[in-house]
């Protein structure tokens, strides 16, 4: 029975490209993993993985790096999705970092990200012996990402050397690795934020409800709204808790994720709001503005 064409030619092309990349990663590497961060991009990536290996299941597990500071709703969503799809979900937390008391509030975003995300990811990849990891990063997110390859080579110790990237011509990916080296694979490289939301709408992909506007307890901090997801976030002098109609454009650790005031409660409204927006999605992320080229530095150290 033929199916009706739901996707625009543009989205159909992006979908086919991503499926090709997912299959390539599965075929070329010994032990791949899909880095699942619960956000909308991860959701699209997971959806594409389910399609790529149909009627089989994706031949790799999901890995979530849990900093213990994710929104509660994210964790609930993560567990229910993995269960629904019948996929193996690995959750890794940097126990050392936890023991050292690293957290986004006292330690600052830079150290927290370094220890609880970057180091944690390296630990997990080494622990399970993964030689390739799929991620949902897109080139339109940030300047240094714009130059990253689809198959991004990482040397021993997971370091990324932007000057030693493998040239990537046509779709002829160089997937060759030595022991100890690994590959990060970005099937959504050529997608934009618009494409992601258009695809979510077209394919009816579930996303964490935090993307939709709702009355939430927030506090004004560093020019953005931070949600009080639990009791761990102390208020600074002069700060007051307010209830605002807000939503998130990107999701991460809740003390580092800024919300925007919004009335968009469904996908159509989100897409309409985004098309009218005047700031990029990473604006809500406190980790990027630490220093110029901060993303490039983090990536060199092994950040995804």
């Amino acid at each position: 029975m033929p199916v009706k064409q739901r996707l625009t030619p543009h989205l159909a092309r992006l979908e086919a490209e991503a499926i090709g990349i997912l299959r390539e990663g599965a075929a070329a590497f010994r032990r791949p993993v899909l880095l699942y961060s619960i956000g909308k991009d991860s959701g699209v990536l997971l959806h594409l993985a389910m399609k790529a290996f149909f009627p089989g299941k994706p031949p790799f597990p999901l890995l979530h790096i849990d900093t213990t500071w994710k929104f509660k709703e994210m964790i609930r969503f993560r567990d229910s999705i993995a269960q629904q799809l019948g996929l193996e979900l690995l959750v890794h937390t940097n126990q050392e970092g936890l023991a050292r008391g690293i957290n986004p509030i006292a330690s600052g975003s830079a150290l927290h990200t370094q220890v609880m995300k970057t180091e944690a990811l390296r630990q997990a990849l080494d622990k399970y012996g993964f030689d390739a990891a799929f991620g949902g990063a897109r080139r339109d997110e940030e300047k240094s990402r714009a130059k990253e390859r689809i198959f991004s080579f990482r040397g021993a110790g997971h370091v990324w050397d932007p000057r030693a990237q493998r040239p990537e011509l046509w779709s002829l990916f160089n997937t060759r690795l030595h022991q100890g080296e690994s590959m990060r694979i970005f099937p959504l490289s050529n997608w934009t934020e618009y494409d992601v939301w258009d695809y979510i709408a077209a394919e009816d992909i579930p996303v964490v409800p935090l993307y939709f506007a709702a009355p939430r307890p927030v506090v004004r901090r560093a020019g953005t709204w931070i949600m009080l997801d639990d009791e761990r976030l102390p208020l600074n002098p002069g700060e007051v808790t307010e209830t605002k109609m807000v939503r998130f454009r990107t999701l991460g650790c809740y003390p580092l994720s800024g919300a925007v005031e919004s009335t968009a409660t469904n996908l159509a409204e989100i897409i309409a709001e985004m098309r009218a927006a005047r700031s990029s999605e990473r604006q809500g992320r406190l980790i990027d503005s630490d220093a110029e080229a901060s993303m490039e530095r983090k990536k060199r150290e092994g950040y995804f």
Partner: protein
Amino acid sequence: MSAQRDLLRFITCGSVDDGKSTLIGRLLHECGLIFDDTLAALSRDSRRHGTTGADIDFALLLDGLEAERQQGITIDVAYRYFATPRRSFIVADTPGHEQYTRNMATGASTASLAIILIDASKGLLPQSKRHSLICALLGIRQIVLAVNKMDLIGFDATRYTAIVDAYRDFAAKLDFTDITAIPLSARMGDNVTSASGNMRWYQGPSLLQHLEEVDVLSDEAAKPFRFPVQWVNRPDANFRGYAGTVVSGHIKTGQKIRVASSGGHVQVQRIVTADGDLLEANAGQAVTLTLADEIDIARGDMLVAPEAPPEIADQFAADILWLGAEPMLPGRDYLLRIAQDWTQARVTSLRHGIDVNTGNHVAARTLQINDLGLCHLATLKPIAFDKYSENQATGAFILVDRFTHETVAAGMIRHALRRASNIQRADFTIGRTARAERNGQRPLLLWFTGLSGSGKSTIADLVEQALFAAGRHCYSLDGDNLRHGLCRDLGFTAADRVENIRRAGEVAKLMMDAGLIVLASFISPFRADRQMLRELVGAEDFLEIHVDASLETCIARDPKGLYAKAKAGLIPNFTGISSPYEAPAQPDIHLKTDEFTAAHCAEQVLHMLRAKGIAC
């Protein structure tokens, strides 16, 4: 619901000085795609690294890596994404400097249109030619000639037209189907997204308008069916499917397909996708095929149209762009990836290098990083492929170093070489020296080079008569005569001329091995080829004889009526008229047939032969 949009992937070629990044920044800005926070970051960066004073330096938006911002150059390919209501765009912004040819080629490999940026105040420079040659080699057929910085030349239509004409002249020999020229100022925004009030003499579209409207519909669907198997999907004992992307053509259920490597035929049973089975799949679709019969197929095999199969060969000729820091070494083994297949490959010979600034062939023994050359390759096992000019997806390959795993080369296949795969040299007891002794003479190659009508054959004939009369064993090889037989398949393009000379050289060498004195009369216009001959037969046995008459004299003589035809445009690539003649810098003998008779010139040659110990 968003509108139906298709995608245009294009590349911008030019250097920082041409205003390339500024142009893209301007496009993104004018399309409302630079967000407020990005703009704020940009204005911060501009004050620190920028070159535009208080203005926002758009180049910084694209030069993303720290090293690039500090040096003010673009050292990698950056991809940018934007969309208008009419179309989505992916821009590959690539470096313009010669040492970054490989990055440009990377950007060009996935682009269907190139913007060649020219600084109007500087005119057409060698780098624009280089960029155009690389684009042409990578198969880009649509060109936008963006003549930038029109504000610096006072929006002068005459100077603009001169630049465009010069470019069209140069580009005539490249395989572009369309060249659209647009005068603009990226800094000021003239003709970038809307018509410029400063250039009312220009009636054409703005750059963005052209990008939105240009027709780059690929004809992949019209080509023969090709399906490289990427992954064998076996979730359980009941299902066995072959996952991959249709790279060209289309396939329907029930159709017969052929397994390229084994030649086996089999019927397509189902076209499986997660959204349900399809009756038909077209180029660009990622699907999973199930087949009516069990047949041995693995990742790397190619399923193809039985009526139009690809080439299967283990030797082929290809244009190679060297990407690796270590030079290419003929004879060394590399890993080769083509479509989904990996094998081992060796460059058996480097036929010639290609000057990226002019497209001219140059003699070369190796390829360094960013060098181009035509190579012959041999693979460990036969591979399935098409000519790159006919199908990029099945005609492109990469070479990977076996030890470092670096991607060291990009290759584009020209054609298969039909040779036995395991050729070894047989040794015979009677050698060249013995034959030379028996003949009582030293074998030599007398190579007469010069324009058509300069008198090569006439003089060679006189010399041969004298040698023959003196009892010498000799033979005359003549360009025209060889083209009736051995070289009948060759034309007069530069590439064919190189091959023509190579064959003549090999034949001459065999005759020298047989003990003969060989007199060869060939226009042989390229210095590199004559150098190749010198190396082929050995410098001590090679006499380069320049038969030198001015073009005017040759045209006046025109013994075969060829100049008349060439001037009438009836013969393309005619040496002296529409193809260059590179005169020898230091010929062994220089014969000025403008001034001296053929007999006198022949005596000059005989004199030299006597000096070399040839009795005549």
